[in-house]
């Protein structure tokens, strides 16, 4: 023990992109390593020390019975538990299984599905244990990650606004792709954090940061229709990396089931 705050990084079902974001902090990595003790971070080090940890960063969703147990132990070992990315906050892209038949999926990929142990649903960490903070994105933003780490080390709340991508376009001076070009864009209902990358590249936002706080999805669904998007396409744009988040899930279902949309 070094007396420094102890950091641990854990991975569940995921692509590793969110934890890689920590190694992508090239300018800050060595300084961070000087101020805290990296007690567990399998992707980066063979050192693996038992808890308790001051701050645990968790990437990935829960998809197996073993992982459902493992996250309980991680929670018990950690003072603060921060979850990273669409996988950990909304079940991730692998939550598309929630809308299909996981048995059938296993049979599509594996000749011997009986060797594979998996849960029917891919779920967010908060569905299993209390979490202290959810950082969104697929992947998360490096600057936001550093803010979260420094905030917890300093004992304050992270300053992460939960408004929409539209604010970031305005802040960056990016012309609205929806208004100017009629490009379908999920920016109005998507959580800020990326810095409006897609509109800056003349592309509509496809929602990788998940829903903003209180998103007006019915209005956006109407706009997408007016822009000529086919209903099955509209349902699909909400069913990507954050498909299982309540707001995007409801939006997709409202398109699948037009009666619901009339009510909304």
């Amino acid at each position, binding site marked *: 023990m070094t007396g420094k705050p102890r950091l641990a990084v854990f*991975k*569940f*079902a*995921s*692509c*590793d*992109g969110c*934890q*890689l*974001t920590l*190694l*992508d902090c*090239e*300018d800050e*990595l*060595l300084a961070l*390593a000087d101020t805290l003790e*990296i007690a567990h*971070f*399998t*992707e*980066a*080090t*063979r*050192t*693996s020390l038992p808890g308790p940890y001051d701050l645990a960063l968790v990437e990935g969703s829960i*998809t*197996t019975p073993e992982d459902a147990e493992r996250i309980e132990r991680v929670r018990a070992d950690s003072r603060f538990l921060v979850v990273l990315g669409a996988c950990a906050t909304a079940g991730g*892209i*692998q939550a*598309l*299984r929630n809308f*299909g038949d*996981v048995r*059938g*999926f*296993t049979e*599509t*990929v*594996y*000749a*011997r599905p009986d*060797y*594979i142990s*998996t849960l029917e649903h891919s779920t967010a960490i908060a569905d299993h244990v209390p979490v202290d903070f959810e950082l969104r994105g*697929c*992947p998360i933003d490096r600057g936001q990650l550093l803010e979260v780490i420094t905030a917890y080390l300093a004992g304050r709340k992270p300053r992460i606004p939960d408004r929409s991508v539209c604010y970031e376009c305005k802040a960056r001076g990016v012309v609205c792709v929806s208004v100017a070009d009629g490009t379908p864009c999920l920016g109005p209902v998507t959580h800020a954090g*990326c810095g409006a*990358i*897609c509109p*800056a*590249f*003349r*592309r509509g936002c*496809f929602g*990788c940061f998940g829903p903003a706080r209180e998103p007006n999805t019915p209005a956006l669904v109407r706009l997408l229709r007016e822009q000529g998007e086919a209903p099955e*396409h509209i349902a*699909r744009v909400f069913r*990507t*990396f954050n498909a299982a988040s309540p707001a995007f899930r409801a939006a997709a279902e409202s398109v699948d089931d037009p009666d619901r949309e009339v009510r909304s």
Partner: protein
Amino acid sequence: MTHRHERTLRVGSLARVEGEGAMHVRLDAGGRVREARLEIYEPPRFFEAFLAGRAYTEAPDITARVCGICPVAYQMSACLAMEDACGVTVGGQLAELRRLLYCGEWIESHALHVHLLHAPDFLGYASGIDMAREHRADVERGLEIKKTGNALMALVGGRAIHPVNVRVGGFHRVPSRSELARFAPELRRALELALETVIWVAGFDFPAAEAKHRLLAVAQGDRYPIDGGQGIATDAGYGFRTADFEDYVFEHQVPHSTALHAELADGSTYLTGPLARYSLHSAKLTRHAAAAARAAGLDAECRNPFRSIIVRAVETVYAIEEALRIIDAYEPPERPWVAVPPRAGRGHGVTEAPRGLLYHRYDIAADGTITQARIVPPTAQNQAAIEAELCELLEAHQGLGDAELTDLCERAIRNHDPCISCSAHFLELHLERS
């Protein structure tokens, strides 16, 4: 130390690899290897299953999420496969921009593996971060090269992890000549650093080993292969068309892994990745990269997996030189993409991820809906070869104590920079000695 009893060695979570897995080996009392398993226990994520029913245009964004370490490889193989299915070829400056983006991924990924994941094995540290206490300059150099790779990905692709700018047919937006030209000085600086890294790693101690497997790499004409190509080259005296991949490579499931095992039609194991690329194509390296390889003591072929760190360092130099060449010759194309109207058909796409060949195949319907997807990632292909290498090492070094032998096995696995997230996913090491 003699072991007259059976030995089982096991490592629970293999470190400094991407994704999750274990290793489990068992030697009998006579020192024969009874089992050498690379257990990929990462939970399966079923990409191939849920791609069915999606639009062909969605494949690049969706398959990027297979792997945060090499998303561009997924995006590029997916784009090539879709364009192949639709009978469209993307050439000229758009193809060059794709190669440029891919160079960014090679630079980033290789710099990460060489400095933070692999070098600590040679110098005896638990991590790159620990290594930085005594080798600060080397680690800082690695981080700076890596940062340049990431910056190049962000410049061309919008961001380093899961770039947003890639689409079937090209890009959403292409950079201006001056945007790229402004970046050239940073690349030139990285080239100097990457050359220093080659010299640094060439001085490490390398255990003797020889990969006896077949080698497989994309063939890209007179270029060192990165972003696509005319077909597949092997060291077996034959090459084949990308479309025939599944006639030459067979995958089967093994009980201990969520990744499938691949082998060639004749049943031989094969290796894909830096050693294969280098051994099949070293004559196509650029000037600095070729000179660096020679100075580092590499011959035209390299079959010692421990020396793959040198090959990665040389390939980093190559990718930087390529990036500079592309930027220098760049003329913005008239449109950021070419139209790729869907049609019913099957398409194949293959590119060189930093860890090796990545094959995609899709069947699409007339309206562009994906009806079937198949993805064969590099680590799944290398898995059987890695297990064979473990067997050889265990037999050659059985006189070592448990800790040293376990270490050596872990290193043998890390030589291949296995990406467990990609393969379905990575690794715990269990070395059994009872």
